[in-house]
């Protein structure tokens, strides 16, 4: 058996090497450079050779790994399983510890501007992941255009704040409402679609919104973007060093020295609260009839119909509520950046959010946090190696799919449990 396996694996890795050669040969191996104003081809066969060897050897070890995994199937020994069991048992304590850590994080000695920015970005992605988890994880609708709602939220906040001068706290629910309406708008035409077809239409929807933003110059200023978006205030107290005459600011009201970090810390807590609201809402709604109907719809649409669940309303609420949280996150994004343009809402953003949800283990709230830390953290770590960032990102996804094919936390908890003797 063992010899047979090695022979098979060798054959397989040879084949992989050939495919890698065919793919990377032209892409990497033949490079055009301008020499004396003439375009010449400069071969880089050594790099190609390295890639091909890497792919072939990698494939070989993956084969051995999956064979071993096959052999010990049924034995709960894998590392990932140990983690998810641990999270299951200590889930509540870990969640509290994580929240406590998030609360004291800004007062840690190492939490400088850079770390705070990363933390805010991660929180934004966690919130987006949790919002999309409603659509993908609970209702089972693969939405590849989630960034559209993020964009709608950001633009509606920006436009209302700029043109009407409304404060963040008034614009936030409006932005959520607008995004939710767009969710319903997307929901109607895709009611009858599922699986791949649904994914394609949602993808197109995301692009449509971006192109609309790009071309509706009168409203959105197109590629120039919207500038001068008002910053949020602390219940009416702005964060400004030199306020207008007679206006009290955050630092004068509390008798503090002015420090630009005050605003950053406030933003951090803002997104933390928004994200936690998203999470609490999702946990709560899973126990309500509409949340249960989402999960049932994911499991079996015909059974749902025969029980009197209205699939149309159920799907539309899933789209609308998921979109609403995307809209909240979008208005936070707009107020943090103070500048938005369609460039921030490309397909890659949707892809990252979907990746966060899928790699985390669909439907798992903790999984979203873990995969966000992993993926966004990785992108940050590789920020200095600009051109390798996406390679690392793609590599991380491939690795997760090999070792944890159903996501980091693949186990879904039942919504109701009955104590020990249940």
């Amino acid at each position, binding site marked *: 058996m063992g010899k047979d396996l090695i022979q098979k694996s060798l054959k397989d890795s040879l084949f992989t090497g050939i495919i890698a050669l065919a793919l990377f040969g032209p892409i990497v191996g033949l490079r055009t450079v301008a020499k004396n104003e003439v375009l010449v081809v400069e071969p880089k066969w050594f790099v190609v050779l390295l890639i091909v060897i890497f792919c072939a050897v990698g494939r070989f070890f993956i084969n051995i790994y999956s064979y071993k995994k096959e052999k010990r199937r049924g034995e709960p020994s894998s590392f990932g399983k140990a983690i998810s069991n641990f999270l299951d048992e200590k889930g509540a304590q870990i969640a509290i510890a994580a929240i406590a850590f998030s609360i004291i994080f800004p007062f840690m000695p190492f939490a400088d501007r850079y770390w705070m920015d990363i933390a805010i970005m991660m929180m934004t992605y966690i919130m987006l992941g949790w919002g999309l988890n409603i659509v993908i994880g609970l209702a089972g609708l693969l939405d590849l255009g989630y960034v559209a709602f993020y964009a709608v939220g950001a633009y509606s906040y920006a436009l209302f704040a700029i043109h009407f001068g409304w404060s963040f706290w008034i614009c936030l629910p409006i932005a959520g409402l607008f995004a939710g309406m767009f969710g319903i708008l997307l929901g109607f035409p895709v009611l009858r679609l599922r699986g791949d077809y649904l994914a394609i239409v949602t993808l197109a929807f995301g692009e449509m919104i971006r192109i609309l933003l790009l071309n509706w110059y009168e409203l959105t200023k197109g590629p120039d973007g919207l500038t001068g978006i008002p910053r949020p205030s602390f219940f009416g107290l702005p964060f400004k060093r030199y306020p207008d005459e007679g206006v009290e600011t955050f630092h004068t009201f509390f008798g503090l020295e002015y420090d630009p970090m005050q605003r950053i810390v406030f933003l951090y807590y803002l997104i933390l609260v928004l994200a936690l609201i998203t999470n609490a809402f999702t946990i709560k709604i899973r126990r309500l009839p509409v949340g*249960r109907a989402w999960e049932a719809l994911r499991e079996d649409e*015909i059974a749902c119909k*025969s*029980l009197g669940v209205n699939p149309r309303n159920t799907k539309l609420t899933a789209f609308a509520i998921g979109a609403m949280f995307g809209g909240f996150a979008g208005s936070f994004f707009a107020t943090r950046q103070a500048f938005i343009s369609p460039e921030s809402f490309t397909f890659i953003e949707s892809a990252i959010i979907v990746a966060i949800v899928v790699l985390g283990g669909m439907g798992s709230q903790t999984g979203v946090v873990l995969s966000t830390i992993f993926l966004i953290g990785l992108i940050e770590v590789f920020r200095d190696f600009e051109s390798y960032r996406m390679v690392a990102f793609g590599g991380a996804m491939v690795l997760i799919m090999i070792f944890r094919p159903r996501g980091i936390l693949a186990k879904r908890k039942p919504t*109701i449990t*009955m104590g020990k003797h249940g």
Partner: protein
Amino acid sequence: MLNISKVETFYGNIQALRGVDVKVNEGEIVALIGSNGAGKSTLLMTISGVNKAATGEIFFDSKSIANLPPHDIVNLGISQVPEGRRIFSRLTVEDNLRLGASVNEKGKNFDQDSKDVYDLFPVLKDRLSQRGGTLSGGEQQMLAIGRAMMARPRVLLLDEPSLGIAPKLVNQIFASIKNINKEKKVTVFLVEQNAKKALELADRGYVLVNGKISLEGLGKDLLNNPDVQAAYLEGGK
């Protein structure tokens, strides 16, 4: 109570029902038998509104329901236990039951209704926090019937309740169906391949062949009918 007249249903270009007439009176158990592909399940799905009848009429208490969406039909009091049970396998047994109650205004009668279901199928009470998929086939069928009962139906449509279940449990499930009919006063329309069992239980029966009703009569008359015996009962085997 349920009056189906000249119903024709299509899947794309393929005609599954070719003018079906069936009548179910209040308090009856009516069985529909027929071979694979005769259109039995299609008829139930058409009554439930999951498939739409192209022509013909379906009346429930003299109200036309042929063009209503499925959730409205369940609301009126027609619940279906679909073929193959269709349990939500990754949700708990309790969640499954609660979903069955989703037409009763957020399941506010859940405690009373679920108690009735546990009286019918005591085993479900011990399995409340288990996932539906971990139940045995027979238990899943009980859950599917219990789930449909949560909607407080006046007519219960059952699609092949004996499918893939151990013979001993089949007897138990048929006994519960009888119980539902007699004690809970629910009218039952039953589709079965197990013709003998179904006709023994039923007051009246229909035989569906190629999308058309070919025979109808009292359950015991059909049991003794030589054609039925030849085609669907031991005599034919």
